[in-house]
């Protein structure tokens, strides 16, 4: 399952179109809290998370999941500067980062 956590509805919808258009199973959440309350992860899942979420940030969500022992494949997306991204993802291992706006095909990057 591909799990999208993104607060901007257009970006979330576009990402969903891209993934489901390729026949992949997708679920969308608008916030970290919404995801935590209604779902959990298996090791087969891939999570695509916006770093700049309102409330619990993307970085905190990933940290929260790591603490809970669930370490799915995580792809972080962000429109911020590389310095800000580095700060927000400090201490997180093995994180792929995609920057907004996309400079290349995101489906390939996500499924690679």
């Amino acid at each position, binding site marked *: 399952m591909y799990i999208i956590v993104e607060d*901007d509805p257009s*970006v979330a919808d576009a990402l969903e179109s891209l993934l489901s258009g390729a026949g992949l199973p997708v679920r969308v959440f608008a916030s970290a809290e919404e995801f935590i309350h209604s779902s959990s992860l298996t090791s087969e899942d891939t999570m695509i998370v916006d770093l700049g979420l309102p409330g619990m940030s993307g970085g905190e969500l990933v940290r929260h999941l790591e603490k809970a022992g669930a370490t799915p494949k995580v792809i972080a997306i962000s429109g911020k500067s590389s310095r800000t991204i580095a700060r927000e993802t400090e201490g997180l291992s093995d994180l792929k980062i995609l920057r907004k706006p996309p400079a290349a095909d995101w489906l390939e990057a996500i499924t690679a």
Partner: protein
Amino acid sequence: MGELEDRRTAVSEARFESLLDTAADGVIVIDETGRMLVFNKICERLFGYSSAEAIGQNVSLIMPPEFSVSHDRFMNNYHRTGEKRIIGIGREVSGMHRDGSVFPLELSVGEAKTADGRQYIGVLRDLRSRRAVEQRVSQLQAQVVHMTRLSAMDEMGAAMAHELNQPLTALLLYLQAVARQIKTCFADNKPPSDKMLGVLDKAVQEAERASHIVQRMRQMVEKRDPERATIDLREVVNEALDLSEFVAQGATVTIRRVFGMTPIHVDADATQIQQIILNLLRNALEVAKESEERWVKVSIGADDRSAFVSVTDSGPGFSEDVSKSLFKTFSTTKKSGMGLGLAISRAIAQNHGGDLMADPGGNGQGATFTLMLPMHHLDETEDDTWG
């Protein structure tokens, strides 16, 4: 007899000297050729030369270069015609310190006919402190307006980049989705589905969302009708420089003002012109700060048709690469730059029928940015209302 006279002269000279040195104002005496004969203590402090260094030199030593030319002309003119431009009148002039910094002075001139020919006595009062107080009072209000506008511009830039990012991301992802599906359709020999049209529609919406953001910004810069008035460019620029000096209190970069004596009238929105100057100044100060000489020069000039304000700095200039994209929005070489200053400044200048030009400098020369504005012209209808 003669001895007594000599002694009297000596006494009165000594008294004169001590009087000069306790004077609160700068005192300079020059002869007909402009040579300095007296240069008191206050002058030493004002201009950074000792009296021994100054005496015997031409008074142009302590004037900005463009003044010294007209000074010679004024003196010649006065000798020829007797027409008084300054004697007995007093006026505000610019002085130049040894370090090259230029500052405002109030100058009163008296004339004395001596056995050695005509001499002129100049009394100089430093206007910086008086000006500073006046400015603080009268400009605090203006500052608030300026600063909020400026920071609004910076914030707007940051917010805009962020806002544009979302629709652009969505737009590109929708297009990637459609492109993939069309490819699959071709591969499977199937016609494209309605769904794809739906995705394309959404892509268009996102493009529109992006263009609305750009339009909103453009409205702030261009569409707002400038509040035009006939203004003296020197005053408006002066105010902007004072403002930035006030804001950058304690900064170590010297701002040299090279202004002429005559008003330069243009039809413009003073606040917008100040915005341009502040943008240019901000860029210049940033590079000058890192340079060895640490100065920024702002000069104003005009020909029959156009008025110019040039901002030059002691920085390194910029490369050809940079010059290609200099005026484009979001082109910046700075870590925290927005790349909006020059783009917005040029838009404002062109909106006034003028332009903003850049000389890259290099090889030890700093960059020069020149704002050009059309000169104010009295047209006939205006003549009527005057007549």
